[in-house]
């Protein structure tokens, strides 16, 4: 019996650690190898899984159409298990063994940072699907990193969009409640940094731990202030708990959350308590409600229907959208410039007016994100559904 238990334990461990590798059969012309390091399992699996699915879907689609200039795409996707150390190992493997021409990833800022020096060291382009501005700009020198691009909207854009909304609604006193991890710290930093510019007065600045089960204490403190709106910056289950506690305490301020909650899982968890929450979000979740003239509408609906047809019952998500943009920007540049790294890099930098899932990308030598705050729209949750605020 002990042996059986041991055997099961080993099986479990093996199951947890194996990486997903997708290799395709060789066409006549040598394939273009594109690598990806994605957080498919572990803490950020909710983000990484749709990214992996999207990359697989797009590569398949492109190859069915004959690939790029006769070259098929070989998409090599490794799972870093949401672990920065493993991300490094996998990135090294892509660069040294697989000899890829470009790397997509990683899913989170925390897993992207450690792979930057590896990919940059090999002098091939890296297109991250994570949000932090520090990915494309060296925080010490304030210089744009020449080889690194990203497709997820920066926190500062989301914060600007929120503050814009508050200015329009004549709200100036704001309380913050943020989670103590990479995502929360980065959001809190931007909220505090941009507040004076928009004449926003932060009257409370509360924090909570990633694993905290109850935020009543922090919200009680906020309730005692004269804040007109509460901004919560957190992902995963934290925001749902804040939403519930907020409602239970009978608080009447506007509750605003980050773009990190723009997924179905949040609606499922928070239930009724989600109603009335306002957030900045990419256009994907409200694609159907966009005006017909919106340049992103067509590609969003197209991506959505293809993704949901292929991976049903999975629903399309913002994060898969970031992977979509990364793949498209990379392959568009590849079509024009070919696989030579310096040319490919320069071509990505020339991306103009590309309507993707995350917004309209206009890159440049000093702008490797290419988005403005208009990448976001303000959305309110009503009756358990996302509703575009006009």
């Amino acid at each position, binding site marked *: 019996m002990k042996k059986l238990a041991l055997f099961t334990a080993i099986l479990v461990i093996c199951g947890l650690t194996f990486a997903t590798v997708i290799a395709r059969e060789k066409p006549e012309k040598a394939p273009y190898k594109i690598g990806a390091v994605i957080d498919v399992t572990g803490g950020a699996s909710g983000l990484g899984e749709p990214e992996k699915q999207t990359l697989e879907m797009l590569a398949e689609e492109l190859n069915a159409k004959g690939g790029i200039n006769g070259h098929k795409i070989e998409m090599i996707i490794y799972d870093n298990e949401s672990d920065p150390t493993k991300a490094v190992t996998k990135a090294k493997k892509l660069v040294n063994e697989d000899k890829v021409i470009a790397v997509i990833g990683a899913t989170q800022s925390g897993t992207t940072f450690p792979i930057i020096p590896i990919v940059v060291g090999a002098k091939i382009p890296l297109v991250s699907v994570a949000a932090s501005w520090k990915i494309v700009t060296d925080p010490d020198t304030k210089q744009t990193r020449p080889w690194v691009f990203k497709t997820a909207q920066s926190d500062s854009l989301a914060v600007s969009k929120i503050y814009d909304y508050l200015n329009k609604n004549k709200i100036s006193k704001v309380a913050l409640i943020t989670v103590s991890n990479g995502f929360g710290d980065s959001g809190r930093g931007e909220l505090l940094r941009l507040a004076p510019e928009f004449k926003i007065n932060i009257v409370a600045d509360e924090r909570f731990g990633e694993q905290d089960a*109850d935020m009543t204490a922090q919200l009680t403190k906020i309730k*005692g202030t004269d804040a007109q709106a509460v901004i919560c910056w957190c992902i995963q289950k934290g925001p*749902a708990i804040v939403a*519930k506690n907020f409602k239970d305490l009978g608080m009447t301020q506007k509750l605003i959350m980050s773009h990190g909650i723009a997924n179905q*899982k949040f609606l499922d*968890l928070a239930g009724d308590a989600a109603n009335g929450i306002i957030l900045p979000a990419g256009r994907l979740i409200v694609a159907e409600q966009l005006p017909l003239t919106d340049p992103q509408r067509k590609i969003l609906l197209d991506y959505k229907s293809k993704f949901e047809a292929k991976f049903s019952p999975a629903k399309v998500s913002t994060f898969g959208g970031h992977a979509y943009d990364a793949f498209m920007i990379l392959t568009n540049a590849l079509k024009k410039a070919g696989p030579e790294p310096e040319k490919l890099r320069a071509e990505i930098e020339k991306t103009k007016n590309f309507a993707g899932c995350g917004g309209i990308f206009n890159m440049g030598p000093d702008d490797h994100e290419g988005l403005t705050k208009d990448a976001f729209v303000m959305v309110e949750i009503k009756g358990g559904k996302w509703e575009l605020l006009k």
Partner: protein
Amino acid sequence: MEWHSQLIQYLATGITTGAIYALVALGFTIIYNSTEIINFAQGEFVMLGGMIAAGLLAMAGMPMWAAIMLAIAFATIIGIIFEQLSIRPVKNPSVMNLIIITIGGSILIKGAAMIIWGKDDRPLRSFSSSQPLHIFGAAVTPQSLWVMTGTLLAVILLHFFYEYTITGKALRACAYNRKAAKLCGISVERMVLFSFGLSAALGAFAGILIAPITFTSYDVGTMLGLKGFCAAIFGGLGSNPGAVLGGLVIGTLESLSAGYVSSGYKDAVAFLIMLLVLYFRPAGIFGKRTEKV
């Protein structure tokens, strides 16, 4: 908000989480009393209770009370199987070996739960309406009251069980002196099995009570288990009233420190208290000072 309603709010929140810690701590003491081992898989039974109940409720047509009963029953069975497969067959059952086995068991249960239910957090609906009650300006959810009364009920039942039933008395006898209990004809093996079942049931009950407030997922057991362990140490391992008091004290202090100091230090409070108790009163607040001569 007035200062006193703020204080009541913190206390209500603290007592709610404290009650859960108390139930987890009771699970620790029950097993400690009959085996002298610390069952580090205790937190996983809390997780199992919540996850099984959520899983059953997701299946259509199951009423709440039936899901709760079944979840507790399943968790109890898993507790018994756990004892049968991992504790009983050990050839060299030193306390240290057994404790390490429980850590292994906890990792196994957690891993299995992740594979079965996935990594997402799951909601469990409240037992009754979710409209909060206002008590002296503080908002208290009905689920918090369920947690408090549920814990109270469990503690009272447990007390009567230990004081007035033959099995309860046999369990106490094992706790006092196992060899003597054996000589009196009490089957210590059966008592150990029984205590694993009982503490699994208590843990699962705690997991179900708290899930509507905090959600549940495959990894909630670890932290709850550790907090429950701190509570058990605080009260003196092996003392039931001590475990309950320990849970309530730690829950309340956590909530107060999150409110008045900073929520960043909240988790540190429990462990700090545990360290202080271990330094200054190693036997715990209610612990027996003179142990075994």
